């Protein structure tokens, strides 16, 4: 054991309020502490508890837990102090923490043990102090004080009263963590230029281990349905050490569905707080196709409450297409019995991406990911394009620069005639490239 025993002359009953006082009378082997990591030290009962031993360098009980230290103390004490009569540990607790800041000290802070001169140091030390109840053979309760010394990391300071759950001293560190480079990206694309940076007093902190996590925000991206099985974006790095500039660069690969993703970064080896940032996955600039007398909007569901989002140009083209189609039919003589207008079904969600009509986060509804394609009813349902008008519709589609596909969905090799419709590429092939 390298920790020089700490002398505590305080009455055993004074423990919590004496934390700071205890700290000042603790003698620490500074050279050793300077090399020590902030990891938890063994619990120690110093030699002053050993009646027959005035050597303050001796430790009478060491253990990984307070109880273990106390049990070892009994054994050691009994071995050289037969009068101690220590018999049983029946309770150990943690009354509190003490600390002292580093500096040069060479005074005998206890006045009892001929303490060695402390070496110069600039480290901070936090001391966790506990008490154990040890029964003497006489039945008398004895309460040795148990110490645990933790050296704070270079440049850090201990908390005035660190949490017992956090012996690392770093709760009051001035380390901070930030994330930068956030923005938006399209589904399936990679967002470069993301950085996590750790600073200490606004200066880069190299070599700090950081950890990142990513999560999709529920019901974002136009999906009103459950999040089970929702694909999340992927980071190029989830853990790593900051470089000389205190930063660590990484990328975000967007999933096929649109939505917001929150990235959270923390330090692994110290407390630096946490930083979060949001990546918006989606197609920018999509606008809703509003209701109009020229067409009917259909297909809205609770799962996908906004199913008519399009790019500016696509919206322009479908609007003109609908107006031309209806306008022509209104001018012919005799006029048709019903107000024939296009019934416009799914286009894209508010930010594009996978349009999972079955709430499965996959894309059976192909090409509806960028606001450049729309379905038009062409079956037997009300308002559908009659079979006799398909040629007219296709010509008008060509007039506006759109490419109509008369689509009869097949499922497992079986024709679903009732689902037939026009799938209209409003901007040509561009609309057909959707991420999987």
């Amino acid at each position, binding site marked *: 054991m390298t920790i020089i025993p700490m002398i505590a002359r305080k009455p055993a009953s004074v423990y919590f309020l004496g934390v700071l006082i205890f700290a000042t009378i603790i003698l620490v082997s500074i050279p050793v502490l300077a090399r020590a990591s902030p990891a938890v030290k063994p619990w120690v009962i110093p030699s002053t508890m050993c009646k027959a031993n005035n050597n303050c360098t001796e430790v009478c009980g060491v253990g990984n837990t307070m109880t273990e230290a106390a049990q070892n103390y009994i054994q050691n004490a009994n071995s050289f102090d037969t009068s101690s009569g220590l018999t049983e540990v029946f309770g150990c607790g943690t009354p509190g923490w003490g600390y002292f800041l580093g500096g040069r000290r060479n005074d005998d802070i206890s006045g009892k043990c001929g303490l060695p001169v402390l070496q110069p140091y600039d480290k901070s030390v936090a001391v966790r102090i506990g008490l154990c109840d040890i029964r003497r053979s006489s039945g008398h309760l004895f309460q040795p004080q148990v110490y645990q010394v933790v050296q704070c990391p270079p440049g850090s300071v201990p908390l005035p009263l660190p949490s017992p759950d956090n012996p690392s001293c770093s709760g009051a560190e001035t380390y901070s963590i930030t994330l930068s480079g956030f923005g938006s990206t399209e589904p399936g694309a990679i967002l470069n230029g993301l950085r996590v940076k750790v600073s200490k007093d606004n200066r880069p902190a190299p070599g700090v281990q950081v950890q990142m996590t990513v999560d999709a925000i529920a019901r974002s991206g136009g999906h009103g349905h459950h999040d089970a099985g929702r694909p999340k974006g992927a980071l190029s790095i989830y853990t790593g050490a900051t470089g000389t500039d205190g930063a660590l660069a990484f990328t975000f690969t967007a999933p096929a569905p649109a939505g917001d993703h929150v990235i959270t970064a923390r330090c692994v080896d110290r407390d630096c707080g946490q930083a979060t940032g949001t990546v918006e996955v989606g197609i920018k600039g999509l606008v809703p196709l509003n209701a109009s007398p020229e067409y009917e909007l259909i297909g809205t569901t609770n799962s996908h409450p906004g199913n008519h989002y399009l790019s500016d140009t696509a919206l322009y083209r479908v609007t003109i297409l609908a107006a031309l189609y209806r306008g022509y039919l209104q001018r012919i003589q005799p006029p048709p019995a019903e107000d024939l207008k296009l019934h416009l079904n799914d286009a894209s969600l508010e930010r594009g991406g996978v349009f999972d009509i079955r709430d499965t986060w996959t894309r059976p509804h192909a090409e509806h990911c960028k606001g450049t394609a729309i379905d038009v009813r062409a079956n037997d349902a009300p308002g559908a394009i009659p079979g*006799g008008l398909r040629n007219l519709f296709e010509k008008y589609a060509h007039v506006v620069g759109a490419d109509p596909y008369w689509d009869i969905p097949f499922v497992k090799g079986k024709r679903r005639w009732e689902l037939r419709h026009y799938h209209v590429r409003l901007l040509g092939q561009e609309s057909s490239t959707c991420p999987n």
Partner: protein
Amino acid sequence: MSKLMRITALFAILSVGTAEAEVGIGAIENPDGTYTEEIIQDWQEGITPDVSTGDYIITYKSEDGSFAQVIFEPATKIDPILKSKFKAERNTGVVSYEYKLKNGSKAKRPINQLITYVSTGSPTHPSEWHGLAIPDGVIPGLRLSWFHVGKDIFNEKPGGLLPGRNLRGFAIESHDLPGIAIVEIYGARRTTAWLGLYDVASTVGQQIEDLKKRDFIPLPAAVPKIPVPAPFDAAAILNSLNKHLDEDLVAMKLTDPVFAGQLGRLLGSAAEAARRGDTENVRRLIKDLRHHIKKEHEDIDEEEDGDKDDERESGKGKTSPLIDKLAARVLDFDLKYIDKRLKKQDD
């Protein structure tokens, strides 16, 4: 593009290798329009021409994983000839463009749609046809379409300009001067019923896309293309003309690139002279330009009788003129227009 080139391009498409055959379930469209469904067999994705009909048999894997075999009738079973006429109205400055469309007797289908791009203009159309010019939204200018609409709109059969017939009445008026644009000419065809969408990222998907992209007969025509600024700016028009020559006419292979370069240098000089206000020099350069052009086609001033099937083959005394006759007529017309305006300014 010549028919031979188009056929070569098509075979290039079809010669692309496709994936190996795959066992799966699917459906087949029969020639009579019926379907045979739930077929389990080896499916070979690809496009196969049906020599007897001129159609294409397209086999692909649809988005749901099942296979489909559909019949794609191309819109190119036509034999179009498109002739352009244009003249400037004396008092209004409006240029009138008229087109005569012929569908050759070898065509198998009627022509039912023409599409091109113009800078500005208002179209008119023959009976039973419609004409519309609307902003494209992507390409600057207007997307001009003429398309056939049958009398019985609710029972429309694929109609249009029948084989062996010709039709006048396609016209557009504009304040802009003529340039050359490709007119996409489409034949009537049966609507393809896609049995689920194909994956455009697949090999066959790309082949289908290529097939659809070329699914028209491209023919050049004189259309409103060169804007005439108000107030009149000869330098701007000459620059536009130079750009059109350099970027469009060369790309369309309507002129020899070296010859285009010679004309381009003269146009550049003329534009620079116009910018300086050196009208005399501009007119001299225009005269030079017209002289160069007329050396290739001496008869471009003659009024077209509209009956020659392919005026591009009518270069007098030259087996291979350095510029297409229609392109020569357009350039000469534009240069003459500028010269007249400059002369009017001087007067």
